């Protein structure tokens, strides 16, 4: 018993990793149909897009790179999907990592083909901006003068039909950011107070707990909690995409975690009971 309790407390991490790998593979191959409750934060995000002013443009900001695409790519996808379903104009903008703009462009082009969206008429890519604070301050005041041209065709913004009637932040009907970093501070401090447009955030799951303060205060109208949030959004859109399936290995991995924590604590308890070292 003593040997067993010691073993349970010190399972070789290679066995842990192997078990996790098997579970994730099985979870991806075998879908377990389980109910997914849509949380109030994802619903808030969805409602904000549903109620966005159709006469105004939506800004979708991306601040992620390939490393976090497991979570941020599906989030970006569902947001753009919803915007296009509602026939809303939107502008992409990227901060933090130059990869963002390319990755978001790929997703937008893919969805645009499916929804008949034309670049320059219904959507535009404003490109990557290194200076976050300066750009956001400038957007509040004068969007065209701050950003000047798009990143795909390198033409002045005023030449695009999608930017007609868009001068500053008051002409924006929705702000959504998909992020792997803490850029929300800049948006909240510099932009959100100057507009009635709802601000919604889609962070990676590790960042989500620190954003509940802004949900509570009403500064953020909605949030997508990592890949789970994207799956909830798919549920709201009535889509059964890869993200909905990807929740299964996430669930199984957490179950594995519970089992391991239980085994470790049982081993510690048994060891203490026998007078062994914990």
């Amino acid at each position, binding site marked *: 018993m003593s040997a067993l309790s010691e073993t349970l407390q010190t*399972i070789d*991490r290679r066995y*842990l*990793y192997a078990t*996790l*790998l098997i579970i*994730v593979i099985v979870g991806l191959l075998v879908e*377990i149909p*389980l*109910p*997914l*409750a849509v*949380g*109030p934060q994802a619903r808030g995000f969805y409602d904000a897009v549903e109620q966005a002013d159709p006469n105004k443009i939506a800004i979708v900001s991306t601040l992620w*790179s*390939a*490393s*976090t*695409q*497991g979570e941020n790519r599906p989030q970006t996808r569902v947001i753009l999907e919803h915007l296009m379903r509602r026939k809303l104009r939107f502008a992409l903008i990227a901060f933090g990592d130059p*990869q963002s703009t*390319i*990755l978001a462009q790929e997703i937008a082009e893919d969805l645009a083909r499916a929804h008949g969206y034309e670049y320059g008429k219904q959507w535009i890519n404003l490109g990557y*901006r*290194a*200076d976050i604070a*300066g*750009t956001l*301050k*400038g957007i*509040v*005041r004068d969007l065209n*003068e*701050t950003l000047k041209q798009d990143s795909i065709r390198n033409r002045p913004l005023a030449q695009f039909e999608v930017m007609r009637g868009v001068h500053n932040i008051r002409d924006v009907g929705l702000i959504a950011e998909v992020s792997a970093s803490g850029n929300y501070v800049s948006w909240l401090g510099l932009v959100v107070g*100057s507009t009635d447009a709802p601000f919604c955030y889609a962070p990676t799951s590790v960042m989500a*707990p*620190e954003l*509940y*303060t802004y*949900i*509570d205060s009403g500064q953020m109208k909605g949030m997508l*909690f990592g890949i*789970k949030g994207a799956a909830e959004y798919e549920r709201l859109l009535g889509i059964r995409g890869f993200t909905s399936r990807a*929740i*299964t290995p*996430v*669930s199984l*991995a*957490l*179950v*594995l*975690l*519970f089992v*391991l*924590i239980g085994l*470790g*604590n049982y081993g*510690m*308890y048994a060891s203490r009971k026998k007078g062994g070292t*914990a």
Partner: protein
Amino acid sequence: MNLQRFLASAFPAAHGHWRWLAIVLAAAGCGIMFFVLQALPGRARKALIAAVTFLAGLFYALEFFWPVRRGTDENFLTFAVPTVGNVINVLAAFTLGLGVFSLVRIHSSKIVKLREGWPNSVVLLVSIVVMAVAGLRFEETRFFRSLFRDVLNSFDAAMFATLAFFIISAAYRAFRVKSAEATLLMGAALVVMLGQIPIGQYLTHWIPEKGSFASLLRLDNISNWLLLTVNAPATRAIGFGLGIGGLAIALRLWLSLERGAFFEAKADES
């Protein structure tokens, strides 16, 4: 007189050959400034840096605090915010060159001296060149898209994915019931995790989501409550501290009060 009009008349936009001349003169000016700064004694250099830092910070502070003109969202400095922002973009571009230079210097030295691991340095330098050439010259080709999407993106995502394994081993090792606080922490963590996944939600899905006392016992509701009512105030408190810390740091930097470790000693040396 309007500051914007004054600056526009004093520094009109250059076009054609005049623009190239302006760029060359600016680059030459920067070079001269570099040597002048090197030649300056330490104290004078410190004073100059402090003055420039103060003026740069003063711009943003003044632009923020100066009252806006009635009916507008602007004051006499607001027009310059995009221009000053562009300066920051240019500075960011310079640091990219510095990083590449350092990398090439270190790994070239390693290859030339045949130090341990030199083949890896060869791979690194070749990769830098190939990726740079592909991005600059062949951006629209399948070659670059493959390198970017299939190689770089995949490697990045794979490294991030290793975190899942590390979290498993870290949590297995760390979550032990050694004290009352640890038990409470573990219990809360387990409830929050269960409330976030379908398997956990399934355990209490038969309880109505809202409208009855029993809905308080739904795992997703408990999880949400913990995040909003317990976690949020704690995060907010930490946020207050960090926010005030950030303000203090910004003040110290702006007023060049930041001393210690390096810059003060260096200035005192020369």
